Structures are given as C-alpha cells and as structure tokens.
C-alpha cells in the first residue's frame, strides 16, 4: 500500500529545493518589478552619494523616476547645442534582478528567521546595485558618449579602462554572483544539512 507513496516522493532534497525556487521565482520577480520604485530607492540614494562624492565635478543632480535614475551632469553636449547639458538615464532593473533570485532562494530554503535573512541580503545587495548604476553612468559619459562630451570628463586612458572593467563587472558578474554569494553565506547550515542528506524521501 505504501509503495506508490514512496515512489511519489522519490525526489532528492536538492531537487525539491530547486522546484520550490522555481515556484517562488515568478512571485518574487513580480514583487520586485512592481515594487521597484520603492525597493530601489536606497540604491538610487547610494548612487547619488557615491557620484556626488567621487565625481562632484561631473554630477549636478541625481533623480529617481520609477526604476530609473537620471544623472544631470555638468557636461555640455557640444557647441551645436548652446546652453544644453548632458543627462544620463540608467535603468536600475538591469542591476537589481539578483534581488528576486535571492528572495526565491531564501524563501525556498525555509530556514528560520527568513525575514531577517531577506533584510540582510537586501542591505548587502544595495551597494552592488549602486555599483552597476554608477558604473553605467560613468561608462556613458566617459566611453560611449560623443568625443566632444568624453573629452570634457578629463578621464585618462587607464581611468577609462577601469571604468570599462567596473561596468562589465557590475553588469555581467555582480547582479548574479552577489545574491548567490550572500545566499550561500547566510545558509551555511542548510547547505551542510543538504550535503549530508543522501537519502531520498
């Protein structure tokens, strides 16, 4: 009588965990997308601080609109447009999709104090998001803008190289790796237990 039940549950803890993560992902993505203006407000704030502290001569104002931030610069678009200034819009969603991934992993692990873990992950991920946002802005004004704009920034060759690396790292590596690292660090007990568990249930 029990045989069918046993067969039904022949899925490893890791397999079950993966299925639960996949079940959580649509919900966490939806929450992240619709709550982005609020969730990403701290990242916009950090981007504002960093850009004003580190690049005060370039940035006049940083303003959040929804999930985007607009950097108003001190740079002129060129002689053809008298009196104009360069503004750069950055989509923060591009650098924050690790938030729903981290949330799905955390909720699927079903460890105690999940809310605390979610809060820790969020706080740690905010600077990573800000990294991507600021690096995107710098890449725009220092590398991809027209020559008459990039020349006003005063960046020398090695600084442009550093900006390119920071942008690539902030867009290709940080958004995905940072949540995974934080999740592994905050779920060491869960991982150890999963590693020990070899029986199927």
């Amino acid at each position: 009588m029990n045989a069918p039940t046993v067969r039904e549950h022949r899925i490893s803890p890791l397999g079950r965990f993966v299925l639960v993560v996949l079940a959580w992902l649509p919900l966490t993505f939806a929450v992240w997308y619709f709550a982005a203006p609020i969730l990403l407000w701290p990242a916009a704030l950090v981007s504002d601080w960093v850009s004003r502290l580190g690049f005060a001569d370039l940035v006049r104002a940083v303003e959040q609109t929804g999930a985007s931030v607009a950097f108003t610069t001190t740079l002129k678009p060129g002689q053809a447009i008298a009196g104009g200034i360069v503004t750069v819009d950055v989509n923060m969603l591009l650098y924050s999709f690790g938030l729903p991934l981290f949330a799905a992993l955390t909720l699927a692990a079903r460890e105690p104090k999940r809310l605390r873990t979610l809060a820790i992950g969020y706080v740690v991920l905010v600077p990573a998001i800000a990294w991507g946002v600021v690096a995107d802005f710098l890449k725009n004004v220092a590398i991809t803008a027209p020559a008459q704009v990039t020349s006003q920034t005063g960046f020398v060759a090695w600084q442009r190289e550093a900006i390119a690396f920071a942008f690539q790292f902030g867009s290709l590596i940080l958004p995905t790796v940072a949540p995974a690292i934080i999740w592994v660090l905050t779920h060491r007990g869960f991982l150890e237990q999963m590693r020990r568990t070899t029986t199927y249930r």
Partner: protein
Amino acid sequence: MIRFFILFIVLLALMFGIELTPWAQRWLVEPWTATLAHASATLVTAFDPGVISAGKVLRSTSNGFAVSIEAGCNGVEATIVLIAAMLAFPAPWKHRIAGLAAGIVAVQGLNVIRVISLFYLGQWNRDVFEWAHLYVWQALIMLDVLIVWLVWVRTLPRVEDSSGPPPPTSAATAAA
C-alpha cells in the same frame, strides 16, 4: 569558508579580467560565441529549417528576425563563475576535473536553450523577449550554476573527523 570566498573572488576577478582582454576576446570568446550560434542553429533546424547562423548571429530566413549573441548571453561569464567556485572549493583534483567537465556541459546546455528560446520569444513578442533576455534568463543561468555547484559539492568525499556530529537521520531531515 572565508578562505573559499576570498579565493573565489580572486579567481573570478582574474578570469573575468583575462576574458575582457582583446586576446581572449579574439581567440576564445568570439570563436566560442560563433560555435554557440552554430550549435543553436543546428538544433533549431531539426524542427525549423529556415534558420541559419553567421558568426554570432542566429537568423530566420523566413522573416529576417535575428539575434546577436553578445557578452553575458554566451554563457562565458557563467562558466567562469562555475570554474572559480569549483577551483576555490577544497576538493580532490579528480573531482574538480569531473565536476568542471559535467558542470560546463550543464551550464552551456542550458545556455543553448536560452539562446533558442530568446530567438523565438523575440519573434513572438518584443516586450517578453526583453524581460526574458535582461532579467529572467540571467537569473536562471546563475541558478543553474548554483545548482551544479551544490550537486558537485554533494558528490565530494567527506573529510570530516570522527568527532563531528553524526549526520541527521532521514526522519530528522524530513522534519527540517
């Protein structure tokens, strides 16, 4: 654990830096991306003969729609993350090599599915394509890397001493 993470970050930054060099782009990344496009086209032609690849571009000959496989979509960064995680984690080299071989196949296999799915999503709906391309698939590929790494870690021989706590019983695990 701290040693693992420091080593992981160092290896990751090192390999990522090498990947960005013009030499690596020309001799490794670009040929690999072209191979990925060709493999995707070969698979797709099994059910859709009107698809060709040229370099890193996958193109429909029926409606002209094409996708270009760019950095971040060729699975190179995900593979680098996996290699860094497996090299940084303490394990016998035999297990590392086996894990890397199987893991790279798993990551790149899912990446082929990503490329093909995006190719058809783009022809169906541009908004859905953008969402899947920019957010969903990025997260899924990293989830794949994490799962592959977890599976690999589970297969490693345990080197704990006998004074450690006994492994939990299946009943205790079921209650967790």
